[in-house]
């Protein structure tokens, strides 16, 4: 599969889940809990009660019961004080792609984030169950349309002894706006930081932004004095953070080693030495896992699940924030405008047996979806049923649209991709569409070529793609593939743009939920996409590894345990 050698995983900014919004903004008390986000599939191990995730849950849960204060008294005590292990043993995590940016203030590459989460802390983070918990911030609140007030946790020091202060945060916000480098667009709405007192500050945004807490999750805090002292090159040589692990060494294209921070300010990590190993070849990674040289591989090939689920290894999975879909491009130069008629796009949605693809090609490791994002995303309309597989209905709609004799359609699929089995999926779709009279010209194409065709707008009228958002919010889905300002939107409407912009700036979660549900209904009736499935994040691990697979695709080594260490 080798999927990690390619394009940046579309990690977007962060979103409020309904639950976290209420919890932190304090709009209401006693809100019904959001749908359980951790739908561990495949009967795999789930963490025991002492897991950090459940500890975090308890910590913040207490805060949520303080009603009506309007503040985010999310004063979760440093998690897991009752469970403070001595770090021991070691673990080797395999990843396919080389590390790109050691400095987390540059662009985000999903490949790098697991390392970033080991070395650095941010103001807030997500626990394994996807609730947002304060980390370097003790608490925070949305104190105005464009301002958020934070209380900084006291007494925290970086690995080099440098204290964490409000000035550090000020410098960090300035640094992400440095013009001379590629910066993560996720932070471009941050304006400046105003110091209130030694532990309190206000973060101002340029526009009202309900996703500030989600964006902050990967806004890693760097030591300002050290950074300025050694410069960026020096920092990349020896990165320093406040996180649970300290940097030891890096051999480019080979590995990074980190060791447990014995003075970590919250619960210490369970495992002492962690190696992030770069192994580009999937088969080699599999063999290294079997030989016990590595302890975890991300996205094992689906045809290996059964073999990996016995003996010394096991497979862990959880529903992902990422889904597979086909994008329609009605005005594609490779078509004749057949897809301009919404009935044709509906017909395509009826004509393809997505459940069959999930069952027979993906071994059931995917969830059929009714819209453009997985059910774990905020404001998902659970009442909207996925398009059923109904070839007769498809034929009827095609006839109504004037295509009773069918037509020819180019379908492009990336030949290797973050999704497994893309070519086989294309072949299944080709057969299904043949049944309703549409002759598919299937074009498996290298991903980089498809990306170029997307940006040139010469891509096929229908192409298989994937989108995800670690914000767990519809904003990044609609902003990326529905809003007409996006380079990757191929069918949109001005009224949809207005709705997307309105929701993006609204701090009222009920209003946002209403707008997103409306968008889900409207795009269901006039589909810009072929709705397919949410994937599962899959991990193959040695059987003595205890970890909770995460919906946001992160691997947080701080939370990983090993029973035999």
């Amino acid at each position, binding site marked *: 599969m080798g999927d990690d050698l390619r*394009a940046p995983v579309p990690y977007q900014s962060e979103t409020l889940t309904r639950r976290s919004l209420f919890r932190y903004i304090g709009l209401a008390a006693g809100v019904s809990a959001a749908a359980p986000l951790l739908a561990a599939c495949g009967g795999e191990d789930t963490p025991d009660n002492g897991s950090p995730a459940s500890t975090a849950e308890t910590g913040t849960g207490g805060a949520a019961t303080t009603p009506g204060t309007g503040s985010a008294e999310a004063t979760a005590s440093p998690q897991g004080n009752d469970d403070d292990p001595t770090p021991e043993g070691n673990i080797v995590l395999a990843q396919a792609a080389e590390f790109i940016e050691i400095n987390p203030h540059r662009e985000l590459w999903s490949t790098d984030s697991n390392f970033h989460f080991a070395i650095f802390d941010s103001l807030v983070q997500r626990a394994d169950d996807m609730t947002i918990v304060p980390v370097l911030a003790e608490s925070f609140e949305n104190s105005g349309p464009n301002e958020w007030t934070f209380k900084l946790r006291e007494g925290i020091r970086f690995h080099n002894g440098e204290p964490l202060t409000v000035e550090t945060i000020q410098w960090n916000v300035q640094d992400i706006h440095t013009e001379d480098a590629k910066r993560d667009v996720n932070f471009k709405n941050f304006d400046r930081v105003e110091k209130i007192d030694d532990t309190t500050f206000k973060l101002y945004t340029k526009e009202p932004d309900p996703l500030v807490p989600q964006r902050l999750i990967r806004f890693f805090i760097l030591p300002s004095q050290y950074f300025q002292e050694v410069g960026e090159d020096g920092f990349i040589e020896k990165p320093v953070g406040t996180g649970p692990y300290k940097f030891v060494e890096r051999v480019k*294209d080979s590995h990074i080693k980190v060791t447990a921070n014995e003075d970590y300010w919250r619960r210490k990590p369970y495992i002492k030495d962690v190696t992030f190993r770069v*192994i*580009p*070849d999937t088969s*080699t990674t599999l063999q290294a896992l079997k030989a016990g040289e590595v302890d975890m591989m991300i996205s094992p090939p689906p045809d290996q699940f059964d073999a990996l689920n016995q003996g010394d290894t096991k497979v862990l999975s959880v529903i992902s924030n990422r889904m597979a879909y086909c994008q329609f491009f009605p005005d594609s130069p490779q078509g004749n405008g057949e897809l301009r008629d919404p009935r044709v796009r509906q017909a395509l949605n009826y004509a393809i047996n997505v459940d069959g693809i999930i069952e027979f090609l993906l071994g059931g490791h995917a969830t059929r979806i009714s819209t453009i994002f997985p059910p774990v995303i905020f404001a998902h309309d659970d009442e909207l049923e996925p398009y059923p597989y109904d070839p007769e209905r498809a034929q009827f709609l095609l006839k109504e649209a004037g295509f009773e004799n069918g037509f020819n359609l180019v379908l492009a699929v990336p030949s290797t991709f973050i999704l497994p089995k893309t070519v086989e999926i294309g072949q299944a779709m080709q057969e299904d569409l043949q049944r309703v009279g549409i002759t598919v010209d299937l074009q498996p194409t290298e991903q980089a070529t498809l990306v170029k065709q997307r940006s040139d707008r010469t891509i096929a009228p229908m192409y298989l793609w994937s989108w995800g958002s670690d914000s767990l919010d519809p904003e990044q889905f609609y902003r990326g593939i529905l809003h007409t300002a*996006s380079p990757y939107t191929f069918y949109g409407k001005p009224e949809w743009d207005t709705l997307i912009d309105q929701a993006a700036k609204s701090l009222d979660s009920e209003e946002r939920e209403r707008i997103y549900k409306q968008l889900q209904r409207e795009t269901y009736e006039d589909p810009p996409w072929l709705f397919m499935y949410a994937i599962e994040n899959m991990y193959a691990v040695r059987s003595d590894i205890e970890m909770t697979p995460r919906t946001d695709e992160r691997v947080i080594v701080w939370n990983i345990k090993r029973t035999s260490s």
Partner: protein
Amino acid sequence: MGRFLIRRLLGALIVVIGVSTIVFVVLRFTGDPVALLAPPESSKEDLEAYRRLLGLDKPVPVQYVEFMRGLATGDLGESFRYSEPVTRLVLERLPATIQLALAAIIFALAFAIPLGVLAAVKRDSIFDTVASIFAFVGMAMPVFWLGQMLIILVAVRLNVLPTSGYGSWQHLILPMVTLGTYPLAQFTRLVRSEMLEILRQDFIRTAHAKGLRSMTILFRHALSNAGISLVTLVGLNVGVLLGGAIITETIFAWPGLGRLVVQAIEFRDFPLIQGAVIFIALITVGINLIVDLLYGILDPRTRLS
């Protein structure tokens, strides 16, 4: 000699300019690095800003002139993806690649010479047949398959060597064998056929007649004559080995130039691909120059021409 060197160096310069130009032009047709590198949620404006940052907003001829000007001063530019100087990125990976290529060549020669000589001396014996079959299979075996088989057998089943990685001599063995098998097979065949040819010649018979020991004849007189063809083949193989190293390095997670190039191509990291290709071209030209100079040492007759 001086003139010869100057002519070869001029030739090398033309090769480098030609290779750079071809790579530069071809790359511009193959993809859009901005679309591949920019964060997925970038707006059209973000993409334009990114394009400007990478200097891709300028007309292609202007980009070409800037690239050639940089090349003339030894500046290969900065990688789009890593935001680091290309020269540094390439030089960091070069030692691993050279280490692997050298190990593979030494491995190949160390086995090919005795195997080839023995096969020639014991012509048509069982040993000769086995060596020939071995050479044939070795040349036909795809590198990716051989690599995987070695990993499964040696690293997983027998568990005596690491599956992949870099750092110790144990890590070097499997990639060395994988990369060295093809040249080993090739060299064995060459040594055998050259030796058969030479052993039939008059001066060998004369040597026998003089009563020289057969070992002396074999190694001192026969093999040194086979050396010329062998050196040529080794020189030609260096380019092949650097190419083959791309696959071997990927299979064995070997942090060399090949890996860097593969990733650069996937992301259309133009400056990095250009820089790496220029380095590989330089190495190939350099090795061939050394081979030409070696001829003079091995065969005094060529010194005159």
